[in-house]
């Protein structure tokens, strides 16, 4: 039985038994290589579920849709390892109760999905442990290395040309499971910390704030990257930050649902070589 069929059967069981009220998965998209999220709440509809190499979006963000989990019923969701880490973060930040999430875990090696064993977020602790320090998707790796090698001036020029394209559509924010705030800092106009007009200075500020707020929280699922209509390589900034918190504070985002948020905690012997 293919993993797709296996998970359809599992989804059907979960829905028929009433164990979950909804299954969040993937269905066919507008083009053959695209998938769109599917929200299945009747057993008959599970046949529309698709699971293949094109299923790359991190669906965890849909779980924090307002009111979805407030009835304390459970929801099943298709998640890759990054998505599972995202559940840990959302639980650690009190945005959801992980006990309400049934995980249909999978990974895609090459183009073929493989099943991950486990159904509760804690079942995947060992797997997550092995992923510490490994970049989930090395897309843009070459560019990342190039950027690292540049001088700040050159990097500035690079990002200036990238950010000049930004139209402040906030699709990156919308697509990110971690951007769950009811009001984003840019939506606060008293004071207006971030220039909202889409000139390059404002775009710099927005993207810096976004990356700062995701420091130690980003699982590098790439949702922001894919959502960006002007193709700014946003995930590279997040990758830099993930590397930074790992190196400086040994923090691998989403390791467990009790992990302390790295930016709200400290150690007395944190590194401080740069302070005069």
């Amino acid at each position, binding site marked *: 039985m293919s993993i797709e069929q296996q998970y359809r059967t599992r989804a059907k069981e979960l829905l028929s038994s009433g164990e979950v009220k909804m299954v969040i998965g993937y269905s066919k998209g507008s083009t053959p290589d695209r998938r769109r999220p599917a929200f299945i709440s009747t057993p008959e509809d599970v046949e529309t579920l698709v699971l293949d190499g094109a299923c790359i979006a991190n669906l965890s963000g849909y779980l924090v849709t307002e009111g979805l989990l407030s009835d304390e019923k459970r929801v099943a969701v298709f998640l890759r390892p990054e998505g599972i880490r995202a559940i840990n973060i959302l639980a650690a930040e009190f945005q959801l109760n992980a006990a309400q999430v049934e995980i249909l875990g999978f990974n895609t090696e090459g183009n073929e999905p493989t099943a991950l064993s486990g159904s509760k977020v804690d079942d995947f602790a060992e797997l997550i442990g092995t992923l510490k320090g490994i970049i989930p998707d090395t897309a843009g790796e070459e560019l990342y290395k190039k*950027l690292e090698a540049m001088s*700040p*001036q*050159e*990097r*500035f*020029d*690079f*990002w*200036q040309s990238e950010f000049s394209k930004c139209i402040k559509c906030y699709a990156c924010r919308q697509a990110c499971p971690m951007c769950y705030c009811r009001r984003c*800092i840019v939506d606060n106009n008293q*004071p*207006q*910390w971030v*220039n909202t*007009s889409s*000139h*390059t*200075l*404002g775009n*710099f*500020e927005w*993207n*810096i*704030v976004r*990356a*700062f707020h995701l*420091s*130690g929280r980003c699982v590098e699922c790439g949702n922001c990257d894919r959502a960006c209509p002007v193709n700014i390589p946003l995930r590279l*900034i997040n990758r*830099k*930050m993930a590397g*930074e*918190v790992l190196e*400086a*504070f040994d923090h691998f985002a989403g390791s467990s649902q009790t992990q302390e948020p*790295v*930016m*709200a*905690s*400290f*150690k*007395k012997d*944190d*590194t*401080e070589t*740069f*302070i*005069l």
Partner: protein
Amino acid sequence: MSEQFEPEIVAFVCTYCTYAGADLAGTSRLKYAPNVRIIRLPCTGRISPMFILKALQKGADGVLISGCHPGDCHFTHGNYHARRRWMVFRALLNFIGIPPERIKYSWISAAEGLKFADLINSITEDIRKLGPFEQYDKLIAETEAQASL
């Protein structure tokens, strides 16, 4: 160049240590470069990364963040939280291309008036050598309209 470049530096400091240290520099009549403008906050924990971005937008060529030495925070832990944020924010700015040499961090206690004066002098000199932050200045010029208060 006939006239030397005078950098503008904005300092965000905590009131209990660095602000008091700056006061001590004054009562000791130490002399230092007049390029720094100090913004007083209760604690380094209150110093948001946004302040740095706004100082840059206002045309600062350099920014100084300073507070109590580790273990000395009036609020016991504010500087420890701040240190983590700076560590991360510093790396972020560097990756975006804002040179870390322009954003300085220090611990200055209420007793270190001399350290404060010396630091302001050396930072002013360092940033003078870097010259104006032309790349950012261009972005500011592009915005034309001043940010509304």
